């Protein structure tokens, strides 16, 4: 359908625009930061070296002047600077723009995950792990939210409705990463059921004996994953499902009051069809929107939660990068994260358009 294509194209264009703006902003900000740093480091080196020069050429002021200028120029060119502040910033911004665009991030001198120092590889591993955790948690939250939300909407004011609504309100004001700490306290310290550092999942996985049959291997791997993933996933689900249920409940409640629900019943359709066919289907576009929004909101908290559990994902990268003050890593992470983020939202927008025929009108 032409209008669908146009819709998708608009969304893609918007996403591309956002990415472009973000790319520019990140590159510009980091460029300013880098240039400022470089200048101050140049200045430091200059002052240090100056003393040696001054003692050596104390007798010859002209030569000293020449050498001084040479020193300054050398230091500048060594660091990729020209001495013109504005020009340097623009120059660096261009360089960074290209680097970010091509995902060429170079290497880092700190150690993160895996045995590599290549930033690109590190981020890939981290992203994969974050995706596994976050997607699983979001899926589970979503399912629980739909089931509970529907039940709550069908019997508004019931005990279930009120209890879950209040729970949703309370859990929405709690930072996910704090709940994570509490979970560690309860399950790792007091009950000793789960591990405290999730990053050992790969270590354990690698310790599996090589000669297991395929089926056994899958089971064993699944068990290891489960062991390490349960607490983080449970934390995210615990914090999110209340709010999700409440919001879905409101959406469904709104839909239930629409005329077409009553007319569907008038047509003698079984209640099951009305609810799981018409109502569910009509609720799904706003639910998808809500899903997109909640991913937007919960994402940051989930990242930090990862760090608390030591899950080898983006959260850990951020935590370590902040501690070590590895600014290039932070910039690369933010850029990659933003790209993933915007692409995900784009996909959700696309799903939305598939679900709601009303938006496809040109």
């Amino acid at each position, binding site marked *: 359908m032409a209008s669908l294509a146009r819709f998708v194209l608009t969304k893609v264009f918007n996403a591309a625009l956002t990415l472009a703006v973000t790319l520019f902003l990140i590159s510009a900000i980091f460029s300013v930061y880098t240039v400022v740093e470089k200048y101050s480091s140049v200045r430091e080196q200059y002052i240090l070296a100056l003393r040696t020069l001054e003692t050596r050429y104390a007798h010859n002021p002209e030569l000293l002047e020449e050498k001084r200028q040479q020193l300054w120029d050398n230091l500048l060119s060594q660091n990729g600077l020209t001495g013109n502040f504005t020009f340097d910033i623009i120059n660096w911004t261009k360089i960074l723009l290209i680097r970010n665009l091509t995902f060429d991030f170079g290497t880092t001198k700190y150690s993160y995950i895996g045995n590599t120092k290549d930033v690109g590889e590190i981020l890939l591993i981290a992203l994969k792990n974050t995706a596994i955790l976050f997607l699983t948690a979001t899926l589970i939250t979503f399912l629980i939210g739909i089931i509970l939300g529907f039940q709550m909407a069908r019997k508004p004011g019931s005990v279930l409705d009120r209890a879950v609504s209040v729970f949703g309100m309370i859990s929405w004001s709690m930072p996910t990463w704090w709940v994570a700490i509490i979970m560690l306290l309860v399950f790792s310290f007091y009950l000793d059921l789960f591990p405290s550092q999730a990053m050992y999942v790969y270590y354990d996985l690698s310790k599996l004996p090589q000669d297991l049959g395929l089926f056994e291997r899958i089971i064993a791997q699944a068990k290891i994953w489960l062991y390490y993933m349960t607490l983080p996933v449970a934390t995210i689900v615990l914090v999110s499902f209340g709010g999700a249920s409440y919001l879905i409940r409101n959406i469904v409640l709104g839909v239930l009051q*629409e*005329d*077409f629900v*009553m*007319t*569907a*019943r*008038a*047509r*003698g*359709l*079984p209640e099951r*069809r009305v609810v799981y*066919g*018409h109502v569910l*289907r*009509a609720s*799904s*576009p706003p639910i998808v929107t809500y899903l997109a929004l909640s991913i937007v909101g919960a994402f940051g908290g989930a990242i930090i939660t990862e760090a608390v559990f030591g899950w080898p994902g983006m959260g850990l990268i951020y935590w370590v990068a902040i501690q070590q003050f590895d600014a290039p890593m932070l910039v690369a992470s933010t850029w990659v994260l933003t790209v993933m983020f915007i692409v995900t939202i784009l996909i959700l927008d696309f799903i939305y358009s598939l*679900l*709601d*025929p*009303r938006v496809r*009108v040109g």
Partner: protein
Amino acid sequence: MASEVLVIEGLKTYYFTLKGIVRAVDGVSLKLRRGEVLGLAGESGSGKSTIAWSILGLVPPPGRIVSGSIVVDGMEVTRMSESELRRKLRWKKVSMIFQGAMNALTPVYTVGRQIEEVLRVHAGISGYEARKRVYELLESVGLHKTIADRYPHELSGGQKQRVVIAMALALEPDIVIADEPTTALDVVVQAQILNLLKRLQREKGLSIILITHDLGVIAELADTVAIMYAGKIVEYGSSEDIYKNPKHPYTQALLKAIPRLRGPVDKLAYIPGQPPDLRNPPQGCRFHPRCPLAFERCRMNEPPLFNLGDGHLSACWLNEGEA
């Protein structure tokens, strides 16, 4: 009698709200014969739609049928369970043509699919068979079969109304209730829909209850007319009797309020006051506060429906003598 497809006797449907009991239908009796078009007229809030929902057993909470009987083709609706209503009554025996302005069609399914659904659930027809039938139905209401793949929001008001009509006729029900079928449509489309309804009624011998506040529409289609006021029927008779010889002051006022194209230019006649609060209707005759002909007795006692002969009934003390 076998020719009576619907008999309503003393129906009372109340809404039990937090602010009081709204007596939307307060003792209404009606009969509908096979092939007859009964027009049910009245102001908004007079309880017309509630009667429609009562017949389908779909009065929305906090409403409930309190007493009375509704017999559709031998089945007592008030005593049927929800699943019985669904399987035996709704859409098979009684279907409804909804207001076009209503969001009557589910926005996320195509129109064709929604009609198919009804066929599938009730008649077990699906696939190719169902598709064929859907096209037939659409054509019978004057729509091209490509409409079947459209979504409701892609159709105009008139097209949507036709779809609703097609859907109502899908299972060839005994009774069709048309609830404000032309309201919110522009005048040209109104005329088209009315003509369509007339044709279908003639062709298929449909028994229709036509609910509307527009007396002009009733005049076009109805054989018999019932005038409702404040939850009660105040006048009942053949279309001709009602229009030529209205006996109840309310009916008379309604007819007078229709502006005429020809004739001397007069002040616009209207009925003063507001329809009563159905939680607390006036004592005696419910119309008496607004009635220009009201007298002492009207305030004290509620008049019954007097039989004025030839099936013409009127609930006014002034008609007592003619009964």
